[in-house]
């Protein structure tokens, strides 16, 4: 088995604005099972960061425990990382973001880490609208402990051993919309054309960007009867829209069919260009987003693409009205008010 990736790259590999190639955004060679959907998601993150010309040292990746949470080793090898306690990634991310709000935060989690042990943490980080990209690599099973059904396994889905899952599944995307996540999308590891622009848009969204990515577990949950297998997902996938993320305000060149094309402005002037495939759906309307999800579920479809976005809501730093400079960069002179001011403050309480 190879543990090192050869150092040679294609001599004509494209360069981004910083003069970097994909190589500068890669991590070490994956030790996940061959064919794991998580590796595709890692590759999509690498591609998105490359295309956005992010400085790797301005990114932090934080994860919990599980196959998904191992992946930060396999992408962005030149970025910051913290592999935390099972289900506690949101706390660590919150702390890190409080200390330095200038970084791009990738929270990487799985269905066990988010929908079971970490559910309590997930719901609160959504409420707080922490400015981060939260990716759930959702394979519907506990791959690291031999493939037991997880909380996101669909009712009726058959495991590799042949047993049928009797329980209701937690629909993470619906849950996130319900709890007030300001950016919610769903995608499939095997569809990078959709996933890469979604990650790029999520990185630009100021607030909590939730990406539920179905990522087949080739070892334990890719069997006939499973609703998270490559074949099942490909057969039942239904996209809300095709989407382009445009980092800067462009001249409008292409004209879309009337009523089907939507542009969503992000807080920093960037733009999401949507070509809608679903008709009764408006990505800026929570009710229609929830409806679209429910409709898809009734039809046994997996709805992917951007589901909901709200650029108005303040993120956690906005709500707390924190200082414009990251806290970790404040010097003693800025933090310590001095004896006179302190006395004045104290006097105010007397």
């Amino acid at each position: 088995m190879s543990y090192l990736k050869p150092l040679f790259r294609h001599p004509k590999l494209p360069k981004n604005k910083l003069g970097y190639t994909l190589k500068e955004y890669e991590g070490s060679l994956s030790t996940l099972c061959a064919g794991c959907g998580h590796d595709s998601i890692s590759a999509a993150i690498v591609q998105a960061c490359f295309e956005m010309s992010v400085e790797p040292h301005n990114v932090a990746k934080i994860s919990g425990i599980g196959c998904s949470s191992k992946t930060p080793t396999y992408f962005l090898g030149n970025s910051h990382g913290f592999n935390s306690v099972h289900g506690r990634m949101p706390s660590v991310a919150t702390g890190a973001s409080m200390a330095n709000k200038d970084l791009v935060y990738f929270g990487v989690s799985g269905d066990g880490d988010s929908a079971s042990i970490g559910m309590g943490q997930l719901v609160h980080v959504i409420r707080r609208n922490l400015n981060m990209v939260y990716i759930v690599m959702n394979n519907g099973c506990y791959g690291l402990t031999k493939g037991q059904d997880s909380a996101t396994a669909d009712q009726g889905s058959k495991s590799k051993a042949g047993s049928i899952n009797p329980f209701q599944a937690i629909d993470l995307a619906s849950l996130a919309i319900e709890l007030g996540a300001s950016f919610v999308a769903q995608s499939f590891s095997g569809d990078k054309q959709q996933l890469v622009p979604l990650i790029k848009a999520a990185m630009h969204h100021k607030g909590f960007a939730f990406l539920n990515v179905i990522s087949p577990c080739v070892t334990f949950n890719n069997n006939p009867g499973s609703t998270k297998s490559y074949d099942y997902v490909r057969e039942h996938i239904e996209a809300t829209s095709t989407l382009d993320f445009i980092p800067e305000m462009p001249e409008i060149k292409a004209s879309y069919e009337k009523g089907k094309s939507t542009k969503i402005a992000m807080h920093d002037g960037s733009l999401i260009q949507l070509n809608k495939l679903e008709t009764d759906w408006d990505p800026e309307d929570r009710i229609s987003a929830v409806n679209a999800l429910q409709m898809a579920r009734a039809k046994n479809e997996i709805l992917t693409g951007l589901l909901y976005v709200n650029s108005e809501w303040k993120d956690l730093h906005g709500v707390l009205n924190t200082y414009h400079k990251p806290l970790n960069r404040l010097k003693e002179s800025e933090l310590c008010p001095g004896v006179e001011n302190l006395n004045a403050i104290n006097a105010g309480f007397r």
Partner: protein
Amino acid sequence: MKPTNTKNPEYYHKVVDCQYACPAHTPVPEYIRLIAAEKYTEAYMVNWESNVFPGVLGRTCDRPCEPACRRVRVEEEPVAICRLKRVAADNKGDVKTLMPQGPFQPNGKKVALIGGGPASLTVARDLAPLGYEVHLFDEQVAGGGMMRSQIPSFRLPEEVLNEEVNYILDMGIHTQFLTYVKSLKEVLSQKYDAVFVGTGAPKGRDLPKLPGRKEGDKFIHIGIEWLANVAFEHTKSISEKVIVLGGGNTAMDCCRTSRRLGGKEVKVVVRSPFDEMKASPWEKEDALHEDIQIIDNHVPLSFEVENGKLIGMKFQKVKPVYDANGKRQLLPTDEPDVFIEADEVLIAIGQENSFPWIERDLGLEFDQWGMPVVDELTYQSTHPKVFFGGDAAFGPKNVITAVAQGHQAAVSLHLFCEGKDLRERPSPFTNLISQKMGIHEWSYDNGVAIDQRYAVPQAEKTLTLRDRKKEVELGFDVPTAFKETQRCLNCDVQTVFTAERCIECDACMDVCPTSCITFTANDEESELRQKLLVPAENLSQDLLVSNELKTGRVMVKDEDVCLHCGLCAERCPTSAWDMQKFLYSVTKAYQMPAPLPQIQK
């Protein structure tokens, strides 16, 4: 694009760039792996089976394989393929017992080989084990042809040559040395079933019309004749000031030999610019290293003779001018003509074929340039019994080409003697076998070393210039050779794709370090090449296109910079990718029973 037909042996053969570029198609990565495993004897035999003269070629080959090496496209310098071949030859054990063992059961057929160079010797080797009675004629005292007469001993020690020539002659070849064949008619009258002509290009070009040529004749020599005289020890010295005319490898051999026979101020004067000289870059380097001056852009005007003694030559200075098609013209400059002092001049401006001994009324056609009309596939002349090969067939090339042509001519001779159609040639020997040993284990070393090319050490100049026979290159020592072998990318271990197994998880595409693999909608080749992760702009490299996959897409792999690291196959959950070693052995008259003999160490 249509799915690639990998059943055609030429597809995978072409992926092995070095082997494909080699005229004899020696399985290079195969023997490099054997060298890495310290199996020098086996490595030698892989070579011997294919190119007949591993020891000679490991020192003197023109190495068309090296510029073709994939390493050139991935980093810069090719694997030192040629010098690794020498490592196998230098460190081998007993190889003779692995070669076909005579006496062979006679098949009642008799063939004559005219000329004892690499082409004829190859024919002899291929036909003898089939029971042919082989008669070989050569005017020299021993076999080897130009390998003996033209390649100086400081590049190719005589023992090495003798050893490899004798492996063949010892197979029961009837040799008639010191015999100049004066008449093909006479040979044909002697009831041979077929005749092979491998007489090379024995005539060195002269400058007969240049003023002073006649007057200075005593001091002016034809390069290849002079080299032969040195090799057979008729010439033992040269004057101090020498001019060598010409820019090819013979010129390099002449100037370097001159330095060893007493030449102190040796100058190579050549018409073309330095960078466009025909000599191999490494031979030019070696000449410069031996304090030889190379003067380019000078066209000879006259030999200057005073009192019956050569005093030097006059040259006109020129500059290269290129037209729109890149065609070069050498135009005179305004600068005055140049006089260069010299006591002796060696003319090494090319060589020609010469067939004064072939009667023109035998039904053997010659073309307007005096070359025999020879079929490019069968090497048969217009006289059905007479075959040509080596430099004699299509003009001067090199040893490895002569060997390659010898193999093919031998196939034709055999088919001819059996009364079969010469155009229905047996298929090459091929084998494609999985290298999988475990879930993620391969039976080849798939790591990719980033080492730069290692240089071959040379003996001290003070020693080599003193002794004509002292070999300059010392060859790799074993530890360095090992490191150099690790630079080989194992291009013969093919990435074999089975579309029916693919679940399109993208794992291979994500992991491929050189972005070779793309899953995309099918299209015309030109469009497809642009649609890949990195556009496939090297048109000399093929695309591997799969059958249609479940989603309607196809897998397209650009073979250009594939490292053959096996990561695609390691990350493939369904073994849709497999690493399979492809062995390709050119069609030969006598295919060794196990083309690659394996013996225990």
